[in-house]
């Protein structure tokens, strides 16, 4: 990756412009989107000098179990300056190390309007974890002239409000080391709402669009510091490196801040702080010295975030305590309130747990949706669908879901079918379903303004559309032409929308049909920056600027609820969304949008998906093959090999591209792609177990290496390799025709090549030979991975198939792993209808025990057995194993690590133990 964004950017653009001439393919239209300089609030905030904030806290008190205060400014020096009304400050503490700080205008002082607080993101349960603060202590911190108020946060942690100048931070109780702080650099600014006076000109113009801004500027900005952090991560969605590079400071020329503004960006480039389809204003800091901390600002307006390179504030001459290893950041938002959450960690998994305790853990997906998806814009008609489906069977390549893009509809009216192309949609879906396969159709938020379209008629008559600044139904342009957008902020409208997915309302749908929400940023082709005007109006007088980044979230929510309703609460929804916000993980999967078929975009997919996982959205992936353009065959094969490890594994292509289903590139390449897909299917039990882990703890399926090896500094900026769960390390191959790759294997324990079983030492980089057959992947010593090795047409037919366990022994000849099983589709697991096994191998004995609380009840059973146990790192010699309690013997032999896949050294295999997967048992190697 390029070491620095800034010098490469102009060059890239030049290159792009150049290729534009050559190939007559257009590319990223940079000038259509605002820069920070063209965005007044961003420009103002960025030009503010450190310590320009003069706020101080008064009236500190405990109210309703929280610490409250007023934030005031000294009276203005000249009378013509505005007197800022005091702001209301609230600090509350929740269980498990979460501190919430809110700052808003005081409603008792009659602001012109209530500022927007994003509803329905914070879990209702979160409120019940609030610690009821009884008191605070006052102390004068060393070096301060005034007092600070201190409250308890968790064992060993305190939150501190310094009164003057105003500053909030969390610190360790012992040694008073700071963890996270807000306004340490005095950059806090809060523009209060105003009533328009004669002569006020607040209008903003961009590219021919005018934003009337009826309440004047209302932005908020402040600085946040992460202490003892070597890097900061998070704040998706950007196509950029995983560890966030500084956007300001010494050595950084003229970079844009990281922008959070949900946008439909045509042909985005692979290395830019530019805002893409979704926004999660959650950042993590991680360092070797202390560990991990996190900061989340619940705010759905446009946000710009600067990562300040060390030395950025050299001029101010003020050094903070422990300024070594500190990373400062500047957060700027156009509207809303300050509603921020401090997560104290200290481990990476603690921080994601804390974050998902606020915004929710990822939903438990349908099992089928964790398998392979086949998509294209567009599978044209029923015959095309049938052909593609049968070709998969002909080539013995499994897939679970076939997708239909916009062209399946009648004139881009969603919920309808082009009856010429799809005369019998139910029959088509039933045919797929007979093979255990599913279908997904697209449903976008833009509704065609067509009087004969029932949805439009209904939405119009009920007043369900978003309004423009003058109060008329907002009319924008999207696929169907002139379109309007349902106002998903309104719960009543969401409920109305969700009814549209019933089998009765969605004519031509079946229970095997699931949904894809595209264009929900929202994308408006003729809107400013290809989206909705900021002065459009939502439910309750909320301006679009205030909720923009969450529009797609509410749309996703309503669609997901629709599928739950359709299934009478018995079928888990599957909805893929392009736009997202904090909390979207509760409603389904996302993908990284319209990427391009080139090697750089293959590479950037890893940091993008890692970032999504770290910020809650673990069920995510990138279009395999690249959406725009035609991938070279080698790139396509490499993409399948990498994509097989994405949490969400879907191939997709633009309609101008050549067909690229896996059998179209000759026998050998078909074999390679089939093998990549089979690898995913074999690992589905492992993946599903990881999805359950994410569902209970928020810990993502695909993880950065440092999440498993938090003190190994060499992993901190590695975004070419990643972990799948705690047991698998995968390294992508991102260049063509490579013969060797350098792979860093962290930790003190060894690693086993996933394919060959060859053992490699940990804690060092290895130069490895790379074959076309696979990308490098390794099983960590000390882990047990469950597999299902039998090939099937789809995951559905694998339900009764036996398991294989692969035990990779560590230095002390031990290993452990888990396996989670449920019915794969209903919500019964919430009532305990699941199997959750814990496998432990030590002293030559494998033990299976249950992790289900109240294991006595059997709400879910499985007749599956374990047919094969492979032990890596065990000396050969034993011939038998004893199975208890059945007191049977099973043969031990040397067998292949994978059936029918290359030649590998034979590995110790317990043949046909055939122990029921649901039972407790032990197997002792004799």
């Amino acid at each position, binding site marked *: 990756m390029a070491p620095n964004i800034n010098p490469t950017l102009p060059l890239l653009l030049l290159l792009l412009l150049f290729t534009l001439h050559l190939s007559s393919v257009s590319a990223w239209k940079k000038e259509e989107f605002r820069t920070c300089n063209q965005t007044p609030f961003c420009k103002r905030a960025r030009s503010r000098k450190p310590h320009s904030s003069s706020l101080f806290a008064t009236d500190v008190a405990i109210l309703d179990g929280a610490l409250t205060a007023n934030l005031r400014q000294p009276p203005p020096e000249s009378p013509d300056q505005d007197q800022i009304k005091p702001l209301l400050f609230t600090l509350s503490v929740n269980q498990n190390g979460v501190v919430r700080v809110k700052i808003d205008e005081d409603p008792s002082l009659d602001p012109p309007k209530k500022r927007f607080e994003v509803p329905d993101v914070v879990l209702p349960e979160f409120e019940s974890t609030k610690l009821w603060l009884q008191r605070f202590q006052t102390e004068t911190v060393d070096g301060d002239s005034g007092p600070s108020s201190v409250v308890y946060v968790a064992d060993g942690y305190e939150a501190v409000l310094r009164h003057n100048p105003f500053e909030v931070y969390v610190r360790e109780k012992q040694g008073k080391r700071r963890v996270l702080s807000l306004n340490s650099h005095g950059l806090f600014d809060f523009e209060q709402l105003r009533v328009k006076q004669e002569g006020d000109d607040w209008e903003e113009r961009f590219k*021919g669009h005018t934003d009337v801004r009826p309440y004047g500027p209302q932005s908020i900005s402040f600085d946040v510091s992460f202490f003892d952090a070597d890097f900061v991560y998070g704040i998706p969605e950007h196509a950029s490196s995983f560890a966030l590079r500084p956007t300001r400071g010494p050595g950084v020329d003229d970079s844009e801040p990281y922008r959070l503004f949900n946008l439909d960006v045509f042909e985005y480039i692979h290395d830019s702080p530019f805002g893409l389809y979704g926004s999660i204003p959650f950042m993590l800091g991680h360092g070797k010295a202390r560990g991990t901390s996190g900061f989340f600002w619940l705010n759905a307006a446009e946000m710009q975030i600067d990562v300040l390179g060390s030395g950025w504030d050299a001029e101010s001459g003020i050094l903070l305590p422990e300024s070594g290893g500190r990373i400062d950041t500047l957060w700027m938002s156009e509207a809303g309130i300050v509603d921020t959450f401090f997560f104290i960690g200290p481990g990476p998994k603690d921080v994601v747990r804390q974050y998902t305790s606020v915004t929710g853990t990822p939903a438990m997906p349908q099992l089928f949706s964790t398998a392979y998806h086949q998509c294209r814009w567009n599978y044209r008609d029923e015959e095309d669908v049938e052909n593609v489906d049968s070709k998969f069977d002909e080539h013995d390549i499994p897939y679970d879901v076939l997708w239909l893009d916009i062209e399946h509809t009648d004139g881009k009216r969603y919920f309808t079918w082009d009856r010429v192309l799809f005369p019998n949609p139910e029959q088509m879906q039933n045919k797929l379903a007979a093979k255990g396969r599913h279908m997904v159709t697209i449903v976008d938020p833009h509704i065609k303004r067509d009087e004969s379209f029932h949805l439009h008629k209904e939405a119009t008559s009920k007043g369900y559309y978003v309004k423009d600044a003058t109060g008329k139904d907002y009319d924008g342009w999207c696929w169907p032409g*002139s379109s309007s957008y349902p106002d998903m902020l309104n719960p009543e409208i969401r409920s109305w929308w969700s009814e549209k997915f019933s089998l009765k309302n969605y004519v031509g749908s079946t229970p095997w049909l699931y949904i894809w929400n595209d264009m929900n940023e929202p994308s408006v082709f003729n809107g400013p920056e290809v989206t909705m005007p900021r002065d459009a109006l939502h439910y309750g007088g909320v301006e679009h600027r205030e909720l923009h980044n969450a529009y797609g979230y509410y749309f996703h929510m309503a669609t997901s609820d629709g599928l739950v309703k359709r299934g009478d609460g018995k079928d888990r929804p599957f909805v893929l969304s392009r736009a997202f916000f904090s909390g979207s993980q509760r409603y389904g999967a996302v993908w990284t949008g319209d990427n391009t078929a080139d090697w750089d975009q293959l590479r950037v997919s890893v940091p993008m998906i890692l970032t999504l996982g770290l910020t809650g959205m673990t069920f995510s992936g990138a279009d395999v093959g690249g959406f725009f353009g035609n991938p070279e065959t080698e790139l396509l094969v490499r993409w399948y090999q990498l994509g097989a490890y994405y949490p969400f594994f879907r191939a997709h292509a633009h309609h*101008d591209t050549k067909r690229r289903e896996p059998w179209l590139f000759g026998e050998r390449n078909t074999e390679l792609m089939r093998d990549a897909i089979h690898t995913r299917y074999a690992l589905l039990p492992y993946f599903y177990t990881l999805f359950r882990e994410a569902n209970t703890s928020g810990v993502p399926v695909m993880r950065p290496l440092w999440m498993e090896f938090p003190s190994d500094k060499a992993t901190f900026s590695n975004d070419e390799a990643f972990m799948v769960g705690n047991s698998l390390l995968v390294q992508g191959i991102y260049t063509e025709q490579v013969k060797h790759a350098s792979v860093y294997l962290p930790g003190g324990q060894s690693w086993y090549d996933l394919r060959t079983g060859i053992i490699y030492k940990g804690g060092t980089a290895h130069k490895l030979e790379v074959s076309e057959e696979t990308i490098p992947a390794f099983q960590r010593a000390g882990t047990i991975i469950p597999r299902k090795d*039998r090939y099937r047409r789809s995951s559905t037919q694998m339900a*009764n198939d036996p398991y294989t366990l692969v035990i990779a022994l560590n230095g002390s000849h031990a290993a452990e792993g888990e396996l989670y099983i449920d019915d794969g589709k209903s919500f019964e697991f919430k009532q305990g209808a699941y199997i959750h096994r814990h496998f432990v191998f030590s002293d030559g004995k494998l033990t299976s025990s249950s992790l289900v609380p109240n294991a006595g009840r059997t709400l879910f059973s499985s007749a599956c057995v374990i047919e094969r146990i492979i032990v890596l790192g065990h000396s050969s010699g034993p011939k038998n194993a004893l199975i208890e309690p059945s007191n049977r013997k099973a043969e031990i032999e040397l067998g292949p690590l994978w059936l029918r896949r290359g030649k590998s050294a034979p590995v110790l295999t317990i043949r046909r133990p055939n122990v029921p997967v649901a039972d407790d048992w032990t197997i002792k190697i004799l």
Partner: protein
Amino acid sequence: MKIYIVIHNLFLILGVLFISQIGRSASKSLLSTNPFLGIAPQDENYYKTSSEIFKCKDGSKKLNRAQVNDDFCDCPDASDEPGTSACPGGKFYCRNAGHVPLLLFSSRVNDGICDCCDGSDEYDGKVKCPNTCWEAGKVARDKLKKKIVTYKEGVTLRKQQIEQAKLAIAKEEEELSKLKSEEKILKGLVQQLKDRKEQIEKAEEKERLQKEEEEKKRREAEEEANKEKSKAEKEANQEKNEVKEQVGSEEEPMESTHDDKIGVLDQDVEEDKSNSVAEVEHTDKSENASPTDGIEQHAAEGKEESPVVHETDLHAGNEVSPTSDQATKQENDVAENTEGLSREELGRLVASRWTGENTGQHTEEVDAVKHDHHESHEETPEDTHAEEYDGYASETDDDSQRYDNDDMEDPVDEDFGEDDHYDSSPPYKSDTEDESDFSDITSTSNPSWLEKIQQTVRNILNAVNLFQTPVDKSEAAHIRKEYDESSAKLSKMQSRISSLTQKLKHDFGPEKEFYSFYDQCFESKENKYVYKLCPFKQASQEEGHSTTRLGRWDKFEDSYRTMLFSNGEKCWNGPDRSLKVKLRCGLKNEVTDVDEPSRCEYVALLSTPALCLEEKLKVSSFYQMFNLLFLSSALDSPMVKCCRNYNRN
């Protein structure tokens, strides 16, 4: 649940046939009772040896006999598990008595889906698969019977066609050689007439020169006067024009002055000139233009419009207004001055980035939909245009860079489109015209026409005296007429010769079985498109009045089983269009199943007797199928008997 649907459907097919009962019991056979499940007959011996040791087929491993079909994969080549799903990549054989046997991937064994019609792939008791082989076999047999009948008929038709083709080709070859010899004679006659004509013309020229000499002086004086006058006029007009341009009015006056001045000139030349002039002007404009206010923008647009109207006028006659509208829009695209666009135009423009369609086409499409649904007028482009223009043109911006960039890419594309458009139809028509025109010379029934001409020429040459002055007017006219007629005839003859030569050069197949395709086009309607395939010429896709060329005739491929049309119109962001036509035996020439599996790469099926090869009827695969379906399952015996036999096995 899903499985039940399948079963249910199968039951429906079977109806009340009691065979289903028997079928079900047959499928219950378990692995334990049949250790040789899934083994193909030709492999049975390999598995049925009495030895206690089993060797994997690839020789890699020796196993205990009990490890065969024990639901655990031991052999890397899957050969120890022919009857289970244990080995990925294994094959399962189902006998399917009453139908054809099937070799399945092992991934289908006990997966809950009935794949073998005898149900033998599902034996673990999770689903029940009825035996449907008899029914399925019957369907297959009927199909095969029909196919054989078709084939036989087709073979006869093909033979007839080949006969006809051979006759026709012989006839044409004969005609060609005759034409060639006649051409020689006619050429001589025409030359003679030409010589005579030139002599007369020389004499006439001499006469005229004398006359002209007499009036020379007077005329010179007159001309001098005329020149002065027209120069003044020209200057005046130019001034007028410039003024008008600044005001931004229509361009017609300029056109009319051209007309006045060079009215005598050929239309085409004139058009070309004014076009190129306009084009230069237009490029100038778009390079410099930074439309800072609405008025100027409008003016620029008005100017841009005119050349386009001009062009379409020339080509398309009455379709002027929609096309020109579209063209204007395209020009806007080129510049991508998004601020000058109406909301709708901007929407279309941004959408077009994903779709690749130019916005003009988009308009057509969307409009078409709109017409269908009687949408309100508010949304038609014209209205919003006028309404919203001023409102959104008021911002300044630094778009000038993009003018340059995009200007270079699109016009090229458009030129392509335009050219091809007008190219495509003429050859198609002109062929037929040629045909009808030739009636007078090709008619072999009337051999005397050449003699007649010869006679006439002889008469003329004899009758007319040489070098008489003044020239006899009627004689001269007579010679001229004869010359014109004969040379016209000659050129017709020559073009017939060349077209015949062209035609006979084509590869009509090893037995000339494709000869009759030469003068035929085949059409197929798929949804809104009509596909037109003219073998040896070209293929196109028509939608309403617009025609897209999918390809020019290229060649036969795949030993005359595929026709290839290539080098069609270029696709945006894609390859040149092409069409592959797969041929198969049928009783009529009929195009079906036109499809575009990959962007702009079309395929179609053409059934034709030309592909009904007699050899194919005898080919082993046909026979094999026939044997399997008819002989091995005892065609005439009642099905119960057949299936009892199966059960005993």
